[in-house]
Structure formats: C-alpha cells, structure tokens
C-alpha cells in the first residue's frame, strides 16, 4: 500500500464520518418544508436577543411571543389586560397596585400559572445576584406578594403613575426557572412561558423558530410556524427577502424603496419614539451658555436631516416626545431660523472672528461631538448638525469612539445620543432631563439642570390624574424649549417590507430598541390570512 492510498482512504473516511455525524445532529421539527402558505411566517431581523429569559430582560417592553405580561399594549399603545383579568386597582396614595389574575392559564409544559410565578419573576429581577441590566426600570417597586393563587399586590416605594406600563413585563415559570442558574442556565435558551408561541429551536446567530401554542388562552394563532432569521447585514437581509427565503424583513429606507411598486409586498413605516439628539453639557462654557443652546436649536435644519439622512423616513424632533404623541406640547415646534440664531449669538456677545467662528471673552465657540464608532446613522446626524452649526459661527469637531472612550469625556463634550420609550413620557423625560439623574450611568448626559423641568417632572410622575400630568409635561416641554440643553434632531421611522398575504396588519409606536417584539409582526398571533 502506498502512502497515497493511505491518504486517500483516510480522507474519504473522515469525510464520511463528518457528513454522517452532521446528519445525525438533526434538530427536531415537524418536517414540512418552507411553505408559500399563509400559516407560516419567516421574517428577517438585524439583532438577536442575548437571552430569552424575562428574568434577564427579554421582552420587557411586551410582545415577547413566548410569554405574557400581566398587561399588554394594543395597536394604539393603550394598556389592556393579559394575564390579569383587568387593569389594576390602585390605592388612594398611588403606592399599592392590585391585579386579579386569569384562571385556567397554563405554561407550555402544562403546569398552571399562579400568583407565585408573578412574585417569583419580579423578585428575581430585583435580586442583587441577577444580572439584569434593566432592573432600574423597576426602581419604584418595593415589594410584591401573592394573595392566594390568583391575586398579586405590588407595593411601591413612592407614588409612581406609570407603574402599570411596566407590568407588560413577561412572567416566567417559577417551577422551571427556579431550578436553573438564572444568569447562565437553560431558561435563557429554552424558556417555558404562557404565550401564543412555543420556542422550538434557537440556533444562535442563525434563527429562532416558534410553533403556535395550541392551548393558548387567547385562542390558537392562525400562523402555525413563526421563524425569525437573524441577519445582521442589511444587504444580505434584502437579498434573502428578494430571493423569497424571507416573507418579511426590517430594511433601511433606501433598500426598502425597491419594493414600493411591488404589488406582492407591503411596506410599513412604523412611527417610533426613537429619537436622536445632541447633548450640550452644562459644565462646558460654550454648550452650557443658554444663548448658544438656543442658537443651535434654531440653526439646525431638521427637515433637511430627515430628507437627506433618513431618506424621508422620519420626522423632526423637538424633544424626546414625538410630535404626534398625545403628550407632545403643541406649539413647541421650532422652525429652522438661521437669521434669528445669529442674532441671539450677536446679542449675547458671541462675535464672529476672522475664520467665521464666534468668540466671547477670548473663548472660541467650539466643542467636540462624539458618536459611537460604526453607527452610520449617528455619524450622518452628527455631520449634518456640525455643518448647520458652522453656518451660525459655531465650530463642532465630530469624533467617533467606543462607549468606554466616550463616557468619561461627556462632562465636557457633546454626544450624539439615541433613545426612546413610547409607553409613558416619564420613561424618556425623567432619566434624560431630571437633575437627580445627572451623571448616573448613561442618564442625563447633558448634566441638564432646570428647576422648572425638575418640578414638573416630579409632579407628572406622582399624579395619577391625566390632566395634571398633561399640564405638567406641557410646562416641562416649554421650559426645555427656553433652555434646550439637548438639541433634539429627529424621530426615526422603522421600515418593514412584508408579503401581502395577511390582513389587518398594523405597527405600534416603536421604542429605540426594536427586536422581535417590533414590526408588523408584533401581534403575529392575531393575524388572519387574506381571503
């Protein structure tokens, strides 16, 4: 036998073993191929969840598919009961919330859902040993206890009007989750919930697959198989939508344009609370000057940014609240007015120098604006902003960096930030504008401090009277207009393209983070095929 025959034989054997073992790894499933039918749906998203456990933050804004919250949001973002039988009863002092729970609901493993699961979920999230980065959202919660099998009572540290909005948070199964390590255990990848869908597979980096829960308390969904393919690259995602591999996908506006005249596809432009803004730090003598802040607020051409940077998929922002929100203070829209911006600077003593950049008391009107490297959208916003500012005589140096590089500089430098929670104004306004949040993690990055804003935000979060809240948020937004410590630029639409095979599709007002729970498939369990 020659060396060559040995080599050939080895290679053949190896190849055979590899192929056989690969075939043996086959995942369980029903075995039906990709159907062109209306009872399966395959969508492409850009980001994969890090975990599927609600205890570590999965689905905290609702629409988790696998789970239900006590409450849920409808298409108009109003609260409706889910695992609770109705909206909570709130005590007179606003610190006790009582929920009655739905009876006869079971988890997908057949075990009944009870008040113990609710208590377990909330207590585990608040546990110091649980690595849940969003536990601060439950800051108001002091304790939660079960009263019998079907009632839970939440007790708050302080009166907090938007608390009910937090209870869309998914409820985990105590029986299953408590037997595993909450931070790294199998509940992160093989969750058990009460929701309309049951996870059948998750190959990380590739896709998540779900099947309809036949025993769902809300009725068995018409879409029997739901697949979420994870495709990070926009171009690849568009290509796979084009090739028919996907039924729907999130796409950047410029790639979605190609489907505008495609009769087999529908394009959804979801309105969002997802804003981009520039922080203007109080401690920087240039950006802390109210005249400079107001001038920048007028000098920036928001319409032009929407048109050029967002391809029209968005709208100008004048604060964290979108202009079509019912909480938005009408009349605080500011037109682009370069002449007035210049006049404000002139009056405040900022005089143009030889290079066109203004000076005051020997100080140049110049500062640095950071954005996260690799974020093309923020980069484009930053460059457009800097170019508008230059026309008013303010010099902005745009620089890229990682979170770790940028954060220590933000007491002095500006940053192009993004955020947005649609459920309640408090979720955006308080962490961004209240002085108690200054320098706390990534909150209030402008080190913004305005007495009126502070007072009104406190009033608004405590009162449960909608009129009082509306009036307080109005006042806060008008105070922000007078002292714009951030330049709010745009609210960004999220664009989705999907096969035109189902009826009654809608989109919610979406948050900044838009994963599986966003898009037209936020309520895939309710979809009906077209006749």
């Amino acid at each position, binding site marked *: 036998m020659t*060396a060559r025959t040995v080599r050939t034989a080895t*290679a053949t054997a190896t*190849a055979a073993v590899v*192929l056989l073992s*690969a*075939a043996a*790894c*086959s*995942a*369980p*499933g*029903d075995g*039906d*191929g*990709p*159907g062109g039918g209306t009872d399966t749906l395959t969508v492409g998203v850009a980001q994969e969840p*890090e975990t599927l456990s609600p205890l570590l*933050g999965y689905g905290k804004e609702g629409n988790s598919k696998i789970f239900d919250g006590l409450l849920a949001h409808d298409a108009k973002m109003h609260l409706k009961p889910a695992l609770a039988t109705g909206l909570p009863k709130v005590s007179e002092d606003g610190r006790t919330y009582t929920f009655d729970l739905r009876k006869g609901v079971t988890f997908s493993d057949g075990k009944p859902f009870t008040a113990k699961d609710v208590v377990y979920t909330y207590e585990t999230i608040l546990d110091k*040993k649980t*690595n849940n*980065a*969003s*536990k*601060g*959202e439950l*800051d108001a919660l002091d304790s939660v206890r079960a009263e019998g099998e079907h009632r839970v009572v939440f007790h708050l540290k302080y009166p907090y009007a938007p608390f009910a909005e937090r209870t869309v948070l998914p409820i985990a199964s105590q029986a299953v989750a408590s037997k595993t390590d909450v*931070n*790294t*255990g*199998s509940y*992160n*990848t093989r969750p058990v919930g009460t929701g309309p869908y049951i996870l*059948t597979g998750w190959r*990380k*980096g*590739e*896709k998540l*697959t779900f099947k309809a829960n036949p025993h769902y308390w809300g009725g068995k969904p018409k879409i029997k198989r739901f*697949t979420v*393919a*994870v*495709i990070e690259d926009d*171009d*690849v995602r568009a290509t*796979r939508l*084009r*090739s*028919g*591999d*996907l039924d729907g996908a999130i796409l950047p506006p410029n790639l979605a344009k190609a489907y505008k005249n495609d009769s087999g596809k529908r394009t959804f432009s979801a309105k969002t609370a997802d804003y981009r803004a520039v922080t203007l730090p109080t401690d920087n003598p240039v950006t802390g000057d109210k005249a400079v802040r107001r001038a920048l607020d007028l000098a920036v051409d928001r319409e032009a940014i929407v048109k050029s940077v967002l391809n029209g998929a968005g709208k100008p922002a004048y604060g964290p609240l979108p202009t079509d929100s019912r909480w938005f203070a009408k009349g605080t829209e500011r037109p682009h007015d370069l002449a007035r911006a210049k006049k404000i600077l002139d009056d405040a003593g900022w005089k143009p120098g030889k290079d066109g950049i203004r000076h005051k008391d020997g100080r140049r009107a110049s500062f640095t604006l950071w954005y996260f490297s690799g974020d093309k959208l923020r980069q484009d916003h930053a460059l457009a902003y800097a170019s508008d500012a230059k026309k008013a005589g303010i010099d902005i140096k745009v620089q890229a960096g*990682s*979170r*770790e*590089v940028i954060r220590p500089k933000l007491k002095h430098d500006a940053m192009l930030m993004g*955020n947005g929670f649609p459920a309640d104004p408090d979720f955006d306004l308080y962490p961004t504008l209240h002085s108690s949040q200054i*320098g*706390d*993690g*990534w909150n209030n990055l402008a080190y913004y401090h305005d007495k009126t804003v502070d007072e009104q935000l406190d009033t608004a979060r405590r009162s449960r009277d909608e009129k009082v809240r509306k009036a307080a948020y109005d006042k806060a937004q008008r105070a922000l207009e007078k002292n714009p410590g951030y330049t709010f630029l745009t609210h960004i639409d999220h664009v989705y393209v999907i096969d035109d095979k189902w009826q009654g599709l809608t989109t919610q007002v979406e948050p900044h*983070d838009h994963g599986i729970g966003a898009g037209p498939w936020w309520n895939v369990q309710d979809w009906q095929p077209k006749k």
Partner: protein
Amino acid sequence: MNRPGIRPVGRLVGRRLLAAVPVLAAVTFGVFAVAAASPFDPVQQYAGSAGLTASQETLDQLRRNLHVDGPFWERWWDWLTSALTGDLGDSTALRQPVAQVIGERLGWSVLLCAAGFALAVLAGTVLGVAAARRKGGLLDRAVTSLSYTLEAAPPFWIGLLGIWLFAVQFHLLPAGGLTDSGTDTVTAGGLLRHLALPALVLGISQLPWFLLYVRQGVGDALEEDAVRGARARGLAERTVLLGHALRSGLLPVLTLIGSRIPELITGALLVETVFSWPGIASATVEAATATDFPLLAALTTLATVAVLAGNLLADLLYGLADPRVALEEM
C-alpha cells in the same frame, strides 16, 4: 518503499504535546492580558443597549456579579485552574455554559472548514497540475491571473457575490442558514444544499494558494532529472505527470496544508457571519467584541490546538510521503 515505523511517529506526537502545554498557557494568558488592555468594558458589553439606560448602581453590581473587577492575571488563574478540572466557566455574552456553546457549534464549523478545505486542496491540485503541464498556455495564464485576483478578494466579498449570483440571479442555492428558514429539520440533502455555497466560497478563498503552490512544484519537478529520465524511458505522459512530477511537486503543498489552518479559521469567521452559519467562528466574533473572558479563552485554546495539530499533521504527512525526512529530527 521504506516507511517510518510507528515509534518515531509516537515520539513526535509526544514531543509536540509536551511543547503545546507552555504554548497554550502563554496564549491564554496573552488573551486575558489583551482583553483586559482592550478599550472594551465587559460590563458595558454585557449590558448591551440596556446598559445605556442603566443606573450606576446597577452597573457596579453587574461588575461584581460578573467577577470582572479583579486584575486580569487573577481572572486568568481562576479560569485556568477551573478549566483544568473540566469546568470551562460560563459565557457572559451568550448567557450559557462555555462547554454548551462549543458543543452546539463546533460540529458545524468543522463540517464547513473540512468541506471548504477539501475543495481547495482537490481543485487546487487538479488545476495546478493542468496549469503546470503547459506553462504559459491559455489555461495557465487564465487560472494564474484568476488566482492572484482571488488572493486579493476578501472572503465576505466573494460570499456576497456568491449569494447574489446563485441565490438571487439563478435561484440555485439558498442564501444562508443551516436549513430553509421555514424548517428546523436538518436533512442530509438540505444540509448539502445549504453547505454548498459557504463551502464553495471558503474553498475558493483558499484555492489560489494551493493552486499556485502545486503549479510551481509540479512545474519545477517537470524540469528535474528524474522526470527527464522517465520521459527518456518512454513512459506514458500520464505516468510521468502523475507518478513522478506530481509526487515530488506535492511535497511543499503538504507543508502548506499546516500553515493554511490559521487562514482557514479567519476565512471561516467571515464566511460564517455572511451566511448566518451557526458555527464556532461567529461565536468568536461575539466573544471578542463582548470581552467575554471565559468563552474567548476557550475558543483561543481551540484555535491554537487546531493550528498546532495542523502543523503536526503536515509534518507527519511529509514524513510519510518523503522517506528522506526523519521524524526524529522534527
């Protein structure tokens, strides 16, 4: 033919295994040092977008919980000692035990790399021999210039081109994933269809090196006295080419197989990302950007082992193929 016995092979393997111990220790130490020196903060990477709204108190608590507050050598020592007892720790980025991450993904990566590599070696050899046979001929000029072009083309670019061509234009092959998006079942046929494009791209990105090496080796061998002697004896051209020229021309290629392993792993990293292939390489990207110490260390160890094993394999094959080489001297 005088082939080396089993004992020198065993001794060579033993020597290499001993040498691997300090190498692996040094490499993992280096990974912990580099990750600690990198500007990425494990806590921020762990928290993801939630970290941008988290309070400082939450972030500090996370830092303690994730055990990333001590100096890096302490973390390395903790990792090493528990790894030696078989506990590879938990991946912070993927929220699951490291052993599970590797177990779920390694098979798919090995399959992809093996298929791509086999394709590169086979096609490289065939085309290389064909090109060397008529140096300066049409085929030679075509494949050589194509090789230089491909050497310059990054694998992800070839990948996108492949998707565009085979998935969008011709609808021949699926554009990514392990199975069709609508199904979970991995069947042999479905797997082959899904494997074809990524393996082809990976193979093509590795092909030029083998092709050019074989072409050079066989071309040189055709000039050697032995080949001239064979021709003078009137042996058939086929025997001369495959029996004599290819035999000695392949020797440098065996070395190349070992040294291409690191490139193969890098190529797989890009190809897996483009094709959403659920392998180990895409986990490496995640582990690196998230400064996920336990996963990063385990994957680096794995890659180091692959490279060392590749070198060993190349040396063994060389010893088998060329009796003039003594394994004792390696």
